[in-house]
């Protein structure tokens, strides 16, 4: 049983006009097997939370704690966090020219597992994941994210999640840019990994589309850098019906 605990997390970014606080005290606990969704308007700080957990250097933690099974995540480098069992499926995965998907995945799996996977079992493992996610086998020899369509990038992110088997995975706007068919394939992949590995999931999204495919038990409404309200799936339905403005203290985007 893994447990990611976020306590009173404050995060700033350095901008042209000095430091700006984006997260203002986030509290959240995610355990193995649980599916949480953070919903909120654009600009509310949702992605900042995702990248802060992963350790992106742009975000400065000014106070608070993040622990994974008691270990101090904030003291770890980005790669140490991944090896400890955290994963971030990114909204905009970057291109890495010169590195093939196959080489990248095997290098990552070697780093996470602590030893190189046996070539034969690795090949079948990769083939199976690619088939489920309807990723063409030719992907393996292409450069990471280079020339990938939006849908291909998202499927590639979930492919990595399946192969790296994190304890807790954060999915940042995984539904954005996907048509309904692509969304179903990606969601089926996420559900499959969750069911098989008992992964704790944190879905970050501003629409309820993804939640219709991946059943979140806990829904948190995010506004102005804090969790405003938490509840069950009914909260998502309320957002769908009334929008974010119905929630007190959640300013509309851009305010």
């Amino acid at each position: 049983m893994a447990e990611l605990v976020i306590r009173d997390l404050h995060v700033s970014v350095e901008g042209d006009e000095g430091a700006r606080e984006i997260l203002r005290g986030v509290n959240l606990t995610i355990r193995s097997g649980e599916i949480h969704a953070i919903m909120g308007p654009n600009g509310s700080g949702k992605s900042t939370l995702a990248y802060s957990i992963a350790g992106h250097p742009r975000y400065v933690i000014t106070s608070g704690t993040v622990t994974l099974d008691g270990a101090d995540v904030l003291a770890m480098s980005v790669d140490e966090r991944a090896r400890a069992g955290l994963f971030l499926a990114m909204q905009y995965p970057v291109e890495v020219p010169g590195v093939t998907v196959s080489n990248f995945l095997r290098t990552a799996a070697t780093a996470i597992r602590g030893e190189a996977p046996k070539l034969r079992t690795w090949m079948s493992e990769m083939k199976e994941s690619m088939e489920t996610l309807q990723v063409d086998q030719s992907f393996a020899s292409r450069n990471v994210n280079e020339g990938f369509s939006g849908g291909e990038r998202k499927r590639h992110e979930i492919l990595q999640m399946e192969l790296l088997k994190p304890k807790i995975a954060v999915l940042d706007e995984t539904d954005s840019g996907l048509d309904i068919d692509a969304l179903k394939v990606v969601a089926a992949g996420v559900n499959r990994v969750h069911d098989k590995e008992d992964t704790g999931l944190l879905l970050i999204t501003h629409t309820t589309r993804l939640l219709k495919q991946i059943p979140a038990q806990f829904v948190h409404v995010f506004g102005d850098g804090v969790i405003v309200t938490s509840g069950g799936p009914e909260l998502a339905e309320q957002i769908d019906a009334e929008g974010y403005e119905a929630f007190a203290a959640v300013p509309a985007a851009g305010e």
Partner: protein
Amino acid sequence: MAVVQEEREIAISVPVNKSEVVSSFRADDFAVPTGREEDWRFTPMRRVKSLLNPLPDSSGAKVAITAPDGVNVEWVESGDSRLGQVLTPVDRVSALAWEHVEQALVVTVPKGSTFDESILVEIDGSAASYSKIRIIAEADSSATVVIDHTGTGEHASNVEVSVGDRSRLVLTSVQDWDRSAVHLGRIHTQLGRDATLQQVVATFGGDTVRLVSTVGYDGPGGSADLFGAYFADAGQHLEHRLFADHDAPHCRSNVVYKGALQGEHAHTVWIGDVLIRAKAVGTDTYEINRNLVLTDGARADSVPNLEIETGEITGAGHASTTGRFDDEQLFYLQSRGISADIARRLVVSGFFADVIDQIPTESIRTRLWAAVEDEINLVGAEQSQ
């Protein structure tokens, strides 16, 4: 091969047509370059100064040759009739090396013979030196030649190569100089009918290296692949100038040069000139230069230049890209558990693989991969400080 990310075409006003460039065996026919000339405008002239006039003593290098039985290797006087058949110097330094070298090495691959084992020419400099190497691959032959430069000192070289009709030559030139060395070199290859050249130039060491590699064609069917890999560290100047002179019909040239740069004032220059003359119908040419900038403070100049005098060609294209290994790429790879060191290694080795793996000589390939590894460790060490 990797998809070209950004393609930019640079129109450069060349003062004269490439065919009108001065060529001479006499150094006095060339003025001492000042750095304002088109051909020298990127070169740090102060650092190459000692090679702009005759060297008082040019015996500062040892040359060792290893060749399989059946290949003829001779040291000859500089007036030997086999010299100067296909190469004429196009700059003062090359002409000085031509005039003042004491002996030339002639390597002949006899007609109809095939050698799998590499012919290895090792030039080890300790002080200022000149070299002149003549490679003659006679008709219907096949051979692999490696010229390996190591050591210190200033060096000016001419490598004159003929690939006979229907012959195949694989020529690798490695510039693995010590950090203080200066090397100004010229390689010219003349291809016979249906002859094939595969050239790999790998430049990792030296303070300043400037190589001019040119190719000409004597008849139809000639095919040249010119590959290059270079890695410049802080303060190094590595310059590669290529010229494919298509003066026969139905010939092919393909240029792929890749360079990595790291550190303050690391500077690389790549000039890729291609001239398709009026009679060179059916020419097929492509050239690409890709640079990977690993740190701030480094500069890659890249100038492809294509002149076409006939419309009846099969293909002509060029591309130049300069990309950065940036923080976002590093973050992405690290977020998958890959350490910063391994991430850098992954990116750099992936970048060089399609050039270095072209080198058929295993010992050289292994050494270059080790050199790449050393370079990566260097930047890794700097960044973890």
